[in-house]
């Protein structure tokens, strides 16, 4: 029965010590990733204002715990798909920050040679199959890699990220049905930040507990506090294990919040400054920082040193991007369109 597969909201991790199985090095690594994402995003905003970055820019600020916690549950050989709000997942998966900044600058040293930009970070070598910009439509691709792995008897699990707004489009449901019908190893991670662009959750979805949508497929589902990186990680570990062991897919609903607008263009009419401030007092990075200090995992100096290194890394990424070349015109020829371009006579317009 559907309700059996659903779990109550996990409590914010206010335990007196870190959970079993998390050693200090791991905790510090999670913290490092979260801070790196935050600083990277802040730098992006700055570079956008300076017109070094163009197009749409969707920042992950405020949601770092969700991406970092979830991705930390994966191992090599696993797959990731995500949406246009993809910076956090890419950094958590260890994509090269220089290449990411270069991508935003539209340079040939970018992850996608400057062809994709902010919404389309990808690194095939890490099976990070990319950010996609059609809301909800990439979920089907994720079910496809899981199918491909299964048919090739590979042990990979596919994790796919999307927002609350993505759970009303038909593709979401088609994806869940296929995944459950064929018991494919997919972990669906819904980042419920309470808004789809400016449309509040209760305005766009007939139920506001997204994890319950899995009931239509008898799929295992869980709602978790995506603001707490360790709670998120634990839930993701359970889900990944469930999927990898052949028991089928899982839907995780991570409760989170974005502190910035939907994109750099958003003037945020739909929520008040106060609302955002209230949520900011529960900043996932601050919460985790206090835990690390309380648990004696690190000292204030340790964290400052780390944060400083991160600042330097982000600054270096900007230098790298700035110094890089733009992609060549072959990318607007057929050779940039097809893995195997076919010459014809007369040539295709644009050659």
């Amino acid at each position, binding site marked *: 029965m559907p309700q059996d597969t659903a779990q109550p909201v996990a409590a914010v991790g206010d335990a007196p010590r870190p959970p079993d199985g998390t050693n200090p090095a791991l905790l510090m690594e999670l913290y490092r990733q979260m801070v790196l994402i935050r600083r990277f995003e802040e730098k992006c905003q700055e570079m956008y204002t300076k017109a070094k970055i163009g197009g749409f820019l969707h920042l992950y600020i405020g949601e770092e715990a969700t991406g970092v916690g979830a991705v930390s549950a994966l191992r090599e050989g696993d797959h990731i798909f995500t949406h246009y709000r993809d910076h956090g997942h890419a950094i958590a998966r260890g994509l090269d920050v220089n290449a990411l900044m270069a991508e935003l600058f539209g340079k040939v040293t970018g992850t996608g040679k400057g062809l994709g930009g902010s919404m389309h970070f990808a690194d095939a070598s890490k099976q990070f199959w990319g950010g996609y910009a059609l809301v909800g439509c990439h979920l089907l691709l994720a079910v496809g890699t899981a199918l491909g792995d299964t048919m090739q008897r590979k042990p990979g699990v596919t994790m796919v990220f999307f927002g609350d*707004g993505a759970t009303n*489009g038909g593709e979401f449901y088609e994806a869940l049905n296929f995944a459950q019908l064929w018991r494919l190893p997919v972990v669906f991670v819904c980042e419920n930040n309470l808004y*789809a662009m*400016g449309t509040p959750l209760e305005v766009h979805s007939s139920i506001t507990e997204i994890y319950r949508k899995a009931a239509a497929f008898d799929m295992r589902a869980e709602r978790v506090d995506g603001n707490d990186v360790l709670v998120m990680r634990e839930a993701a570990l359970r889900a990944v294990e469930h999927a990898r062991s052949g028991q089928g897919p899982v839907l995780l609903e991570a409760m989170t919040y974005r502190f910035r607008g*939907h994109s750099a263009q958003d*003037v945020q009419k739909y929520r008040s400054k106060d609302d955002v401030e209230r949520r900011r007092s529960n900043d996932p990075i601050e919460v985790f920082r206090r835990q690390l200090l309380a648990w004696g995992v690190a000292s204030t100096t340790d964290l400052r040193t780390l944060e400083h290194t991160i600042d330097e890394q982000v600054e270096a990424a900007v230098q790298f991007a700035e110094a890089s070349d733009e992609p060549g015109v072959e990318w607007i020829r057929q050779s940039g369109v097809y893995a195997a371009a076919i010459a014809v006579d007369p040539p295709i317009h644009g050659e």
Partner: protein
Amino acid sequence: MPVITVREALRQALHELMQDERVFIIGEDIGHYGSTYGVTAGFLEQYGPERIRDAPIAEAGIVGLAIGAALVGMRPIAEIMSVNFSLLAFDQLINHAAKIYSMFGGQMHVPMVLRTTNGWTQLSATHSQSFDVMFAHVPGLKVVAPATPYDMKGLLRASVADPDPVIFIEHTLMYTVKGEVPDEPYEVPIGRSALVREGRHVTVVTYSRMVHLSLQAAELLSREGIEVEIVDLRTLRPLDMSLALASFKKTGRGVVVTEDWQSFGTSAEIAARLYEYGFDYLDAPIARVNFKEVPMPYSKNLELKTVITVDRIATAIRDALT
């Protein structure tokens, strides 16, 4: 006459149309968010959530509901914020909206309008496309793509008044374009092209944003002694070629400028018709100016080489004259 932007002209038309109780607007982020391109900003506050319906992200649903509501007497204006997302509603538009009148022997009709946008600006491959040719290919749809504030207002009103489904194509880079627009209500008829510039050396046939770039190219060329005549098609289906052909008979030379991929794009039909019906007046092959045939690159540098510029149009016109 007041000079206002395309955005303002559309807002005027929508405000006027909302006086009719049968009219309502359904789309994503048209209300709470304040409208992606500002066209319906403030409408939710003024008309309330029943008539300004913020929809879930479900493009098939938005169009399907609009069709159903149109069947029972409403005049829905559906909005898909970017035409790139409209692919998700193609079945509803092509297999449903376009078929209902004919397939059931004329018993019912579908007076709905789909407002959507073409456009680009470093939005990369999946957010910079034009599917004009796909809509224009389908009998049962009417396809309108105006260029000026005047036509935007007049054609939007005509589209909502029309008993058939109309795809109304705007352009994200055109909302700030200005022009004269009367305060009072008026309609511009669907299916009538317009002569937007007189000239005698060459005929440019175009529509939507390319009208403005073509006008700029014509100004440039005028200094070189080349007088360009420009026809704005305004509607793609049904396609009124009468003015374009009349001009072509005079000039014998044609340039078609459309902001989409060339192969199997809108410029193919327009050029083919010029050739077919203007055959006796042909002095040279008709040139076509289009996007380079690639998914749009993000890099600004490459993007600017992919899209159409005033210079590219001017060059094509000069070439057509030699």
